[in-house]
């Protein structure tokens, strides 16, 4: 009798687990498969720092450096063939030393006027556009990732192990999917020079004006993005911006802790699809974000290469740029990335290149230093296996948050890039 009951119970459990695995596979696998494992071929002669790692776990072995790229996703540069090119407004290199558990975060201004290999002097954000047109899925450009990565490696001597690319529209969509966020805006937000780079703008260097009134209110995705991105709304600079980000993160956390979110997880996964791309595997992202959440954000060595590491100026044509101060930069990156004498500031290239806005760059690339076709290594079964693994790992980890199918970790990756701050991982 008891044997029959046990068999029946076991059968029901098996059925449920099997159904669950099938559900995971069909619900999340297509989206996640399109996000992780997006390998981008390196340029000829470019050293692959992962070659010497011999397949070591991402959090063991030697130091790893991850390039975070955040780019707009509207159609600013429409090429003759109908394809589009985009800028990378956010260029951050995160460095992790697994041995010491130390973490550094280097933010390089998008307007850094430096040598883009094969293209001469350009702003750093233009490397993404020069690298190639957006291909296929949404607005992701593998060639853009490759050239941005190559530029940072060549100009500063920083080896890049992995990359993650984020489309800002993904943040907007996630916020809208959870029904917006409700915050108390502590003071009126005014900004006459907010970048007009999301939505229907056609001007890559255009500005728009913000006025967000103070007091409790509901913010939709686009307004929440404006609220956390504005850099001119406080006299206290990044402190004020950080406080605003904390408000939105806290409100988002409230939404994500609501049981209603279960029904929205597939939509959130779909929101991320096309707006998050990385060559890391899902298990790597999961481990990385769990590690990042476990450390005190205040212990992270965060360096922004604005003054005194750089100074603003204009080119003869009137274009505003940021000039790097190599004497200040080299010692900092040498220490942060443990580069020793390999730290570089090879920022000088041939001059006279017209800015991206002026020449529709993607239509006539001068040199193609990198391949533009991504070589996707992950397969569906691998992803499905990782999906189930993520759910079980997070379940037994006993944390405050439940990372169903690694969606939370992928969301963290997006927030880290959009907010350009480690505090984003506290959601």
């Amino acid at each position: 009798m008891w044997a029959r009951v046990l068999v029946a119970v076991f059968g029901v459990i098996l059925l449920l687990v099997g159904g669950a695995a099938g559900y995971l596979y069909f619900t999340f696998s297509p989206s996640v498969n399109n996000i992780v494992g997006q390998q981008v071929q390196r340029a000829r002669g470019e050293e692959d720092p992962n070659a010497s790692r011999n397949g070591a776990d991402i959090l063991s072995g030697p130091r790893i450096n991850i390039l975070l790229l955040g780019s707009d996703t509207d159609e600013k540069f429409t090429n003759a063939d109908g394809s589009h090119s985009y800028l990378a407004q956010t260029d951050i290199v995160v460095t992790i030393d697994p041995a010491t558990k130390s973490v550094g975060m280097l933010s390089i201004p998008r307007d850094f006027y430096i040598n883009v290999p094969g293209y001469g002097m350009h702003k750093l954000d233009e490397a993404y556009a020069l690298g190639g047109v957006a291909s296929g899925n949404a607005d992701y450009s593998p060639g853009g990732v490759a050239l941005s990565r190559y530029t940072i490696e060549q100009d500063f001597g920083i080896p890049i192990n992995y990359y993650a690319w984020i489309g800002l529209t993904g943040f907007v969509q996630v916020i809208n999917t959870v029904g917006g966020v409700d915050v108390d805006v502590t003071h009126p937000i005014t900004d006459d020079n907010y970048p007009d780079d999301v939505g229907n703008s056609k001007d890559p260097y255009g500005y728009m004006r913000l006025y967000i009134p103070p007091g409790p209110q509901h913010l939709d995705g686009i307004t929440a993005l404006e609220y956390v991105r504005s850099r001119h709304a406080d006299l206290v600079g990044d402190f004020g911006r950080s406080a605003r980000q904390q408000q939105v993160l806290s409100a988002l956390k409230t939404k994500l802790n609501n049981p209603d979110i279960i029904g929205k997880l597939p939509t959130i996964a779909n929101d991320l699809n096309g707006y998050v791309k990385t060559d890391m595997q899902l298990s790597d992202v999961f481990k990385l974000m769990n590690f990042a959440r476990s450390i005190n954000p205040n212990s992270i060595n965060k360096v922004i290469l604005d003054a005194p590491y750089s100074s603003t100026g204009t080119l003869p044509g009137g274009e505003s740029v940021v000039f790097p101060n190599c004497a200040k930069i080299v010692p900092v990156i040498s220490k942060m990335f443990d580069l020793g004498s390999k730290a570089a500031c090879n920022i000088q290239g041939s001059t006279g290149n017209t800015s991206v806005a002026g020449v529709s760059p993607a239509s006539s690339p001068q040199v193609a230093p990198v391949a533009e076709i991504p070589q996707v290594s992950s397969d569906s079964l691998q992803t499905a296996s990782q999906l189930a693994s993520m759910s079980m790992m997070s379940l037994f980890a006993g944390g405050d948050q439940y990372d169903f199918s690694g969606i939370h970790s992928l969301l963290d990756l997006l927030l880290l890039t959009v907010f350009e701050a480690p505090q984003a991982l506290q959601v």
Partner: protein
Amino acid sequence: MRKKQTSKNISKLSLIWKPRNSSLLLLLLLAFGLQGCFGIGGSNTSNTPGTKPITTNANGQQVGVNQTQNLFKGKIYFTIDHNLWVIDPSNNAREITHGGNLYDPAISPDGKWIACIARYKDYSNLIYLSTTGNSAHLLRSGNGKYYQDGPYVKSTYYWYAQPAWSADSTHLLFLSDFEKEDWYAATGENAPLLDLQVFSISLNNPSKPQDVAYASFGDGGDRDPSYRPGHPNEIVYTHYAYDAATQTQQVIQIFLEDVTQIADHPGLYHPGSPSSAFDPGIAITSPKDEDLQPAFSPDGNAIAFVKREASGTMGIYIMHVPENVTATPNDPKTEQEALIPYKTASHILSGQYVSQPVWSPDGKQLAYISYDNSTFDLWLANINYNAKTGAYSMQGSPVQLTSGGIDADSRPFWTT
């Protein structure tokens, strides 16, 4: 209308939403399956008994109005998705406009006009229209363009916000940044003054605005201006600034002011940084607290306002208006006297987010916006005044007037 119990249920579920064992995974997966089979998990709708649905807002929520008769007297104007709505004591709700870009309706005392703000991508316009929603008139346009000024990118776009009528319906107070390029010399700042300041215009001559109150540089400027009933030369507003000593801490205070000061003393006052500005406003709340959104009682003797409380909640309070303090606003003794009524302000109610208090025309009720069930809605509180003690208090429990979510970034208006 009784408050829905959903929030309690959510709280309970939230407690178990930190899984500790594998059985929960099975439950979750089962929930997924059920969701897929039965389509559970769609957008919430307001099914609160006693409410009448009037529209569905942009967030997919059904907005309802309490159907209890005679909860209030007069008409209350507010916005849903920035369309103007009005409700009356018979709970008739009427949508006045449909453009989706209007803010801060203010009804003229003669009952003929609605002044409000029409907002666009980079600017806003100050307009007024008839109370039926027709005959829109443009008073001030903020439209402009971006232009290059040497290495700087500047614009001729302007913001207009929060109009408020004078008692005789001939003048409007409003906020704007249209003088943003005019103050370099006075502020000593090599940047335009983007912070909004208070101005007034005559309806007959809107092209000639008068400076009324100045902003401190950098914290967003002034908000919530309104004339004091029975005292045509006095106004109140919220002043956002940084502390003068370190310029790192926000100081959010309510100011009282004589509107004739700037006009009568040309060149004396000017905006600027917290340490250099010289303005005719006098603080009537403490710099140690964050007080905002003042609203005069109909007799002009009291101000309801919002305080950000130390506990992280927000509260609505009522204080008496200090008398005879606006003529000498920068006199230290007067500055101390102006703070005396604040010390005995009456606490009315608190909540996670409460904001935008407005008085009923008879002074017996307050309407305000409160955050419940993850939406911002209008609530009513009956107010009692004890003439012996001078204290205000709430009578009974607040009543929810709308459900499903209205705009909290647009101040409501209550008229006869």
